[in-house]
């Protein structure tokens, strides 16, 4: 049993294309036997994977604490909603604007706080997340609809067909998810991806290598925020309602947990994290009130037993394990 599993893993390692094709096929076939309810659960999970991947750029690759990420998700959703309701822009055509506005907001919000480190950055990002939520509640510029949000957004339509069924939204989400994974994979293995790693490991040594830490961190924030905006736009198209709750702190915490518990800096880790944080509570609906407790318990257990996450990237695992060993080693 174990041997055959190991054999499969070996084949998987040698033939990554085969694995990718199999996973894609699985994702394509997954909703077919499911009821509409479970298709929606699958869609929701996918959206959170998308959000997790976007946050992973900031937290995982660049090693920056971002505890207000849901704000950009909300900004993306509101952008699509406002463009659709006020200017009659079709939802899919509004998606680029969601991406652009969320990215621009990411730039403006993080530009002044980039020099902050670690926990200080975390505190400031929490505050900014709340600022965005309160601005939405207070009906910013009179266009965000206050505490009730905005409703009656058009559903997206493709080639003249309105996407109404959950399965259609699932495939729309899947398309963007596939694009995102490919993009993240490429970013990881690029000059910029390496610069992020260096800044995460040692900012001063990175500066000595001619890496502009401020610039690459800003790029991580902007890419992460813009991608969260995309997820927001997709959300607005499915639910046809947006509300300030999208930007609430708990949402940011869930996103952070998805990245950290799944395995910081790892694409498969984000899938694992999203399943644990979103799918499981959804499947065990009767236990929903226990969700926060579940979150807390998992956090505590994971931090003790496996701080690098369930499916970590090789590097983060080494970083965390290495630090532990250093801490254990006798001084001198």
């Amino acid at each position: 049993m174990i041997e055959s599993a190991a054999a499969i893993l070996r084949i998987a390692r040698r033939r990554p294309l085969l694995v990718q094709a199999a996973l894609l096929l699985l994702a394509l076939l997954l909703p077919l036997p499911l009821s509409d309810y479970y298709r929606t659960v699958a869609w929701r999970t996918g959206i959170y994977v998308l959000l997790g991947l976007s946050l992973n750029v900031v937290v995982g690759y660049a090693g920056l604490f971002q505890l207000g990420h849901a704000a950009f998700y909300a900004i993306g959703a509101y952008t699509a909603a406002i463009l659709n309701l006020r200017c009659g822009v079709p939802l899919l055509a509004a998606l680029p604007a969601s991406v652009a506005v969320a990215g621009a907001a990411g730039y403006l919000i993080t530009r002044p706080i980039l020099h902050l480190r670690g926990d200080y950055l975390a505190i400031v990002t929490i505050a900014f997340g709340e600022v965005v939520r309160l601005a939405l509640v207070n009906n910013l510029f009179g266009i965000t609809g206050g505490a009730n949000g905005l409703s009656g957004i058009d559903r997206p339509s493709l080639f003249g067909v309105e996407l109404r069924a959950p399965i259609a939204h699932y495939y729309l989400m899947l398309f963007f998810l596939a694009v995102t994974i490919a993009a993240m994979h490429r970013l990881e293995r690029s000059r910029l991806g390496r610069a992020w790693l260096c800044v995460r490991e040692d900012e001063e040594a990175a500066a000595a290598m001619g890496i502009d830490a401020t610039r690459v961190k800003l790029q991580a924030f902007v890419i992460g925020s813009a991608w969260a905006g995309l997820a927001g736009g997709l959300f607005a198209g499915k639910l046809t309602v947006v509300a300030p709750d999208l930007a609430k702190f708990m949402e940011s915490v869930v996103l952070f947990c998805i990245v950290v518990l799944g395995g910081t800096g790892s694409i498969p880790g984000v899938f694992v994290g999203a399943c644990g944080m979103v799918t499981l509570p959804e499947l065990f609906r009767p236990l929903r009130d226990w969700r926060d407790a579940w979150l807390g318990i998992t956090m505590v257990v994971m931090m003790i037993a496996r701080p690098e996450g369930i499916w970590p990237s090789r590097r983060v695992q080494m970083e965390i394990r290495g630090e532990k060993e250093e801490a254990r080693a006798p001084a001198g």
Partner: protein
Amino acid sequence: MEALLELRGVTKRFGGLLAVDAVDFTVRAGEILGLIGPNGAGKTTLFNLITGFHPPTEGEIRLRGEAIAFPPPAGVARLAGRRSSLPAHRITALGVARTFQTIRLFKNLTALENVMSGLHPRTRAGIWGALARTPAQRREERWIVERAGECLARVGLGASRDELAANLPYGLQRRLELARALATRPALLALDEPAAGLNERETDDLVDLVRGLRAEGLTLLLIEHDMRLVMRVSDRIVVLDHGRKIAAGTPQEVRRDPAVIEAYLGAEEEGG
């Protein structure tokens, strides 16, 4: 000989502590300049000023005539947080590379990846290049790997390219730091105690390497505690004590300089 780096009246205060006090000297193109002094003389601080890690309190530093550290801005510019030097990454891009006194490699990256990071200022691909994986970006990536391999081979680390930096023995880590600095293609290579912790044979190898690099046209600035090493490789030596320059000249001149003898031996005489 042409001046590569010029320091004029460079001063650094940390609160009430005067770490570097109005130091002037010139590094000529193609020479090996040793920077020595007793503990706490301000050598590493001066190094950090030259490489942009700290902005100076006063004074000016020029690289090939271009100011990289300048008198502090006044008025609005100061309030806006303008520094009195270029940031470290810009100075690296202009051609000053450094190593650190305590090794600061990217420990969880392989030797090759460490050196690849040094090629960052010599390459251009950004977000779009990475996402679209354009032909130019792929060509650049191939060039980076090739060039990083050459730098590793230059310091004799060709066989360890896929080894994690953390797993290399100490002597090789020192070499890797050197290779990483070389990858930035510097005009001036600043080494902060490169022989610290090396045994005699490794030190000899280092001397050969440093001389070889100079022969290839590199200028070197060397902080070193090991007097024998400094005397052996330096063309000229600058001596610091209590943040001030007390002597400069060839190794022979410096060795005979009464102020230097005083600085190194004075404390002992007073104590005895």
